[in-house]
């Protein structure tokens, strides 16, 4: 069965086309102000990549924040279910999944069958998400890739105490004026995110193996500090940003 999973994220739309459990194509497009059009484009790109026709897709499953607004989806699953399904398909030993996206972070406890046993989400708070990283990069007047690189070179702790992304930006400005090195500030930002997310995930009784997915999983600095906060190794699946879309596609067969 050829199915498409469409992850309607806040920042970007990810599409995975799979034939059974074999991935045929992946594509991504910025969500922008016209998410449906963006989803159409991302799906068209993926269809092209897969070398199939749109009609060959037997089922389209939407997930993500905008999943209910996708008119051409046959059905939808929540991101929690999609994350669990996708991650445990790629790494069956995973029992704790952490998904840090642009606007939201989630922790999910999965059982041996990839079913959700429990989950936690941040509530109305961007301080544990990709949006915070981007906002702090702007405050430091650098791009995110440079911020990651700098962070990994940090030699000193410069803690950010504010629990809110907005207040943290003021704190970063203060650190800049205190002549704290950009590398140390960058590290502090990543550490603050990791601390917040780890605190949320600990509500779930963390069980190994632990996986990190979502766009922010591509941030090596975050992965590094998350390992320290959780005190355990973390699996970052290949194409971590697409895991939710993969999970949605795989759930088509259910």
């Amino acid at each position, binding site marked *: 069965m050829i199915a498409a999973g469409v992850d309607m994220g806040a920042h970007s739309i990810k599409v995975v086309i799979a034939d059974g459990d074999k991935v045929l194509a992946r594509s991504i497009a910025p969500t922008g102000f016209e998410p449906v059009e963006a989803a159409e484009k991302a799906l068209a790109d993926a269809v092209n990549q897969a070398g199939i026709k749109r009609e060959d897709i037997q089922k389209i499953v939407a997930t993500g924040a905008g999943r209910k607004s996708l008119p051409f989806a046959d*059905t939808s699953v*929540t991101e929690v*279910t999609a994350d669990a399904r996708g991650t445990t398909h790629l790494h069956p030993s995973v029992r704790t999944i952490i998904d840090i996206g642009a606007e939201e972070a989630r922790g999910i406890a999965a059982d041996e069958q990839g079913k959700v046993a*429990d*989950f936690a989400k941040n*509530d*109305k708070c961007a301080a544990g998400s990709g949006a915070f990283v981007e906002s702090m990069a702007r405050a430091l007047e650098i791009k995110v890739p440079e911020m990651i690189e700098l962070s990994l070179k940090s030699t000193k702790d410069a803690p950010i105490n504010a629990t809110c992304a907005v207040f943290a930006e003021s704190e970063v400005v203060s650190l800049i004026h205190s002549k704290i090195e950009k590398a140390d500030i960058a590290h502090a930002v990543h550490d603050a995110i990791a601390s917040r997310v780890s605190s949320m995930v600990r509500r779930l009784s963390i069980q190994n193996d632990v996986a990190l997915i979502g766009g922010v999983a591509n941030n090596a600095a975050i992965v590094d500090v998350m390992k320290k906060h959780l005190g355990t190794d973390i699996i970052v699946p290949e194409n971590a940003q697409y895991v939710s879309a993969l999970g949605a596609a795989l759930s088509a067969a259910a």
Partner: protein
Amino acid sequence: MTTTDVYKYKTKPLDCWQWGKELRLEAYQELVSGHEQGKLMILGCAATPYGILAGLGDFVFLAGEPYGASVAADPPFSIPCMETFEAKGYSRDMCGYMRNFLGSMYLDKYYFTGGSFPKFDFAWSVRHCPAGHPKWHEIVSDYQGIPMNYIDDESMLAEGGDHQHRIDYIAGQYLDTIEWMEKVTGRKYDDEKGIQAMRNYFRNEALWGEICLLNGAIPAPLDIKSMFALMPISMLRRHEEVATQFLTTLRDEMKDRIASGIAAVPTERYRMCMLTPPPWSFLKVFRYLENFGVVFVGTYVYLINSGEVKFLYEEDKVVPATVPEERSGWPEMKTREDLCRTIARWRYEHPFQSHLDTRKKEYIIMYNHWKANAYLLLLNRGCVPMTTNMYDFQRDMQAHGIPVSMFEGNFADCRDIDETGVLDRLEAFLEGQGITKLVETV
């Protein structure tokens, strides 16, 4: 899945529903016009044994929390009230009910009429919760220039120690309070009226508790929204004989519904319960979840507040409560002293006073009694005491194998509820339980 698979049970409205609505309306009308008719108007809290006030003659009792809840359920009225309260310099994280109530007072707008906020004859209550509701009444007392008194029964929550000494201390306060009420009202207290009203009060609490327990049947004969709609009769008219008549009728009708297999929600396939009051501005969440075949069978807080049950901890069971005069070793109330001592002891032994560790056992007993499939917990920004220990409760429930969904919100402040986020979270939880929207599967 066929329509028959989805609509598993037969359903029909309650026969006594219309009567219930009339009794409830009368209660609210009393709150509007009772004072003008010469009745005493008294402010207190919902847990106050206000039946004792009947000894002073006709009265209207406005409990602050139900008023706050009524206001909270109406955002266009509620938001200006809360903003007015906050503009006075009070913190936004104070009791949600209080913010709505006091805001309404400062705006001089009475929710039930839109006219002026009533002036009370006096304020009197018991220690209701660690949020300090008598402190709230003190603000009213200062603002309106009215007398205020309060029963200090904090000692009730301590485990161990001299129980009899505590009961004596509390009973003495009730006796003193009656003398104080005579002084501030100029009325002579009629012991027999006070005793009879409290007999009704105890009976109605026991009946409401029994009614809540009957929802352990499958299918549940009542859904939570209907229970909330009928609860004002138990909460506001607890001292009245007509409430006994109604609650007896309701209980008997529920038993008939159980015998005939009549459900509140004909699609019932998943049962949930709560610990706390609901988000009053977002009651539609319960109707929304009925689209998934989810029925909410009850909430612990209203089982033991406006209701009473008896927990048999050694047997992990819960049964309907008996009234004090039917309990072994409790004397018949013949005098004022009997009345005060009975109230003091009754409150002392009421499940409302149970220690947090005991509460944990009670939550599990209730879950099993209600044959629930999951708990829904509210991290309530509008009530710090209610939220304290919530994660602890969650862990404890999960350790007992109980699925738990938790969301953050506010029972009395619509500004603190992300409705889309809550529904999304609940949908994710139900999906993990294998429960999806029924409409899409038929």
